[in-house]
């Protein structure tokens, strides 16, 4: 008796079919996970190339390479691509690959919808890219797309809006699928409080996605009707209010940034115990902290708009609510440190990236606390300080953990060990250059350099130059990453099922052979 049924005419238990149709029609969570990860990797380089255009232009004061309109398109597209094309798909890829294996499920709960959510992502990506070649250029009003500025976008506006609709539908479908999988597909005996932290953080992330992606869809729909169908939502002459857009956008936008960071927390909580050879410290408090962070994410949105002219009560509420976020986040950071405390630590590449994450993410968190203080934010608002802040939490934060997760599971996926020596070179290059890239931006911001500006006063020249050098170093260091991944897929030292010493104790996925068979846990494992 098998625990999984397939349609009678399908017999691909011996392995998948070959060619493009395999990928187009697949419903296998591992195939779809791979597609998500490859898509994310490609977008990571595309978005990174756009960042390098920005850093090249800012290397010196004055206009050298691109015109200001294109520069603004680059900042806008860089953000949209990194958020919706790189980071979110990378996490969806990890979720697809790992969650069924971590909870002992044969596949995702809704496999056909899983296929559709990936291909909708591609469709949304194609629409977004097409805007680069349109009359009037790609959207250039920033990824936040504030009206009335964004309504001046040329032909690309409806394409950008519909691409957001498609990406939103794709994310909602992926999130519904993941939540349904976690609630319904766990192996018998795996209670909610026995789930791995990565699964927990994705459950909460899934909830956030389902809650806020429709909000974003609504906001951009109103932009569309304001531009093409004569509505006045954001036009004061008709009784509307442009600030309304900012409220709606950030009601989506703040939970969205937590969508980008919560799975990261889950990865750190997964990786640290393995390399510290200790169970995770304070599992329950980690779960509760995640839930509290998710709840708080809904009541802090207006800290993105302290300077817009809110009533004083609003400024105060959002200031204190924002500061509260530091409490559950602090719980997490201390728990990670406590997990490492007196552990038998080794520093393979995933652990190196994770330790760097804990330190540098916390640094980004501290500058976040500075920004939370409303009167201080009046000074920092829209300056390079904010750019430094969110890049510290997103690059050495989120992106580092995506890299760590890739190194951590790559042997499991491919069956080969990656080149540890080269990976360590990649780590040191990345960690040093990322700080050269973003640390000086704090100073630039505090000295008054505004963000989203192609030219600047001569006094900012030195730090910009340092930052640009760091940017190019960081960008080209990632080619090492690409090289390692390709090499590992094509061959290398055979990996054992457990891969990391003692990992079997830390998760079901390590009880499977490497590379993982195409179908796993067709009969649910027994959980003690």
């Amino acid at each position, binding site marked *: 008796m098998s625990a999984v049924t397939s349609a009678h005419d399908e017999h691909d238990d011996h392995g998948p079919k070959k060619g493009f149709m395999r990928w187009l029609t697949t419903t296998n969570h591992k195939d779809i996970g791979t597609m998500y990860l490859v898509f994310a990797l490609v977008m990571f380089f595309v978005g990174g190339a756009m960042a390098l255009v920005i850093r090249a232009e800012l290397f010196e004061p004055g206009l050298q390479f691109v015109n200001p309109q294109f520069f603004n398109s680059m900042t806008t597209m860089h953000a949209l691509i990194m958020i919706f094309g790189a980071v979110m798909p990378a996490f969806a890829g990890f979720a697809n690959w790992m969650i069924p294996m971590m909870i002992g499920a044969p596949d995702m709960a809704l496999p*056909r919808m899983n296929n559709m959510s990936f291909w909708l992502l*591609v469709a949304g990506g194609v*629409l977004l890219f097409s805007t680069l070649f349109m009359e009037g250029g790609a959207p250039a009003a920033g990824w936040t797309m504030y009206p009335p500025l964004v309504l001046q976008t040329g032909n690309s506006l*409806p394409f950008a809006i519909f691409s957001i609709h498609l990406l939103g539908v794709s994310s909602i479908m992926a999130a519904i699928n993941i939540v349904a999988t976690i609630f319904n597909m766990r192996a018998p005996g795996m209670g909610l409080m026995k789930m791995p932290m990565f699964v927990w953080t994705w459950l909460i992330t899934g909830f956030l996605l389902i809650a806020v992606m429709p*909000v974003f869809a609504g906001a951009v729909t109103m932009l569309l009707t304001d531009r093409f169908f004569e*509505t*006045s939502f954001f036009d004061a002459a008709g009784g509307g209010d442009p600030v*309304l857009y900012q409220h709606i956008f950030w009601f989506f936008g703040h939970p969205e940034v937590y969508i980008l960071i919560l799975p990261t927390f889950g990865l750190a909580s997964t990786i640290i115990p393995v390399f510290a050879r200790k169970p995770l410290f304070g599992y329950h408090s980690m779960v509760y902290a995640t839930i509290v962070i998710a709840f708080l994410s809904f009541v802090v949105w207006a800290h993105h708009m302290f300077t817009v002219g809110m009533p004083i009560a609003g400024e105060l509420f959002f200031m204190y609510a924002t500061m509260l976020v530091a409490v559950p986040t602090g719980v997490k950071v201390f728990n990670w440190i406590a997990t490492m405390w007196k552990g038998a630590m080794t520093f393979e590449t995933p652990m190196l990236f994770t330790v760097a994450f804990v330190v540098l993410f916390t640094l980004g968190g501290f500058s976040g606390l500075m920004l939370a203080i409303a009167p201080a934010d009046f000074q920092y608002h829209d300056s390079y300080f904010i750019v430094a802040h969110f890049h510290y939490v997103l690059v050495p934060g989120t992106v580092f953990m995506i890299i760590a997760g890739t190194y951590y599971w790559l042997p499991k996926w491919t069956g080969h060990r990656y080149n540890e020596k080269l990976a360590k070179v990649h780590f040191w290059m990345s960690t040093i250059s990322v700080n050269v890239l973003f640390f000086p931006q704090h100073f630039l911001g505090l000295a008054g350099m505004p963000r989203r500006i192609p030219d600047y006063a001569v006094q900012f020249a030195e730090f910009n130059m340092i930052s640009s050098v760091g940017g190019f170093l960081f960008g080209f260091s990632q080619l090492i990453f690409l090289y390692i991944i390709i090499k590992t897929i094509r061959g290398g030292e055979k990996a054992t099922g457990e891969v990391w010493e003692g990992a079997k104790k830390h998760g079901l996925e390590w009880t499977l052979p490497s590379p993982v068979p195409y179908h796993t846990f067709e009969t649910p494992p027994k959980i003690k």
Partner: protein
Amino acid sequence: MSSKDGYYIPHRATWPWVGTVGLAIMLAGFANVLNDSPIGKPMMIIGFATVIIMMVGWFTLQAIESESGMYNAQVSISYRLGMMWFIFSEVMFFAVFFGTLYYIRDLSVDWLGGVGDGPGRSTNMLWEGYQSTWPTNGPGNVGGDYEPMGAFGLPLLNTLILLSSGVTVTWAHWGMIIKDRQQLIRGLIATVVLGFLFVFFQGLEYHEAYSEMGLTLGSGVYGSTFFMLTGFHGLHVTIGAIMLTVVLFRSWKGHFTADNHFVFEAAAWYWHFVDVVWLGLFVFVYLF
């Protein structure tokens, strides 16, 4: 192998990518229409047709699989979870427009009229003499003079229609449970008819607004919120009525049993959700 003992996992899916292609072409076509490009319309038609083909194909496939007993209890729970979370996402979508209405009516229109003005607040300087009221089409009298939509008349009739349809769909559900096919089918027919009747009356109401009351989507922020909220609701009523029509046809063909009728329940949940949204609309858009 019997499917009762296993979680059904389909291999090779065609409809998802067909639907994706259709949606992408349809939206790209719509964007081209908005940019006054001649290729927009044909693209939209091709895309829309593809989406319809996908829906027919995918629904048929699911119906065949369901009737041949391939979905066990666990699969059914996955579908239920999927539908519940989907409805939650729809709730959030409507929350945006209700939130917009609240913010505009209770905060920003007042600010525009100078409420809360003090030293340093300059709102009323830009629109001197503007008195904030509701409904309003703003200080610019955008869209010209108009008459706001009253609550009694067609909207009240539609409220009664939608509430009764909630009753008939529950009656149909009872028919399903007590294995009375006649009651099931009659209940569904009544629900579908009431649903489309609602849409018809809403069309009539819109026609009246445009042709006689001067109330259009362009009538300032009142027109914007009115048509956006009621329009998206009407769209969802249409979607719900189509879902129920599919359920009706399947009931006719003898599908579903007393303990295996997820699609019926999903459509019914959706129908009740649409009903509740309407009550919110009736109170906040029409009545007050």
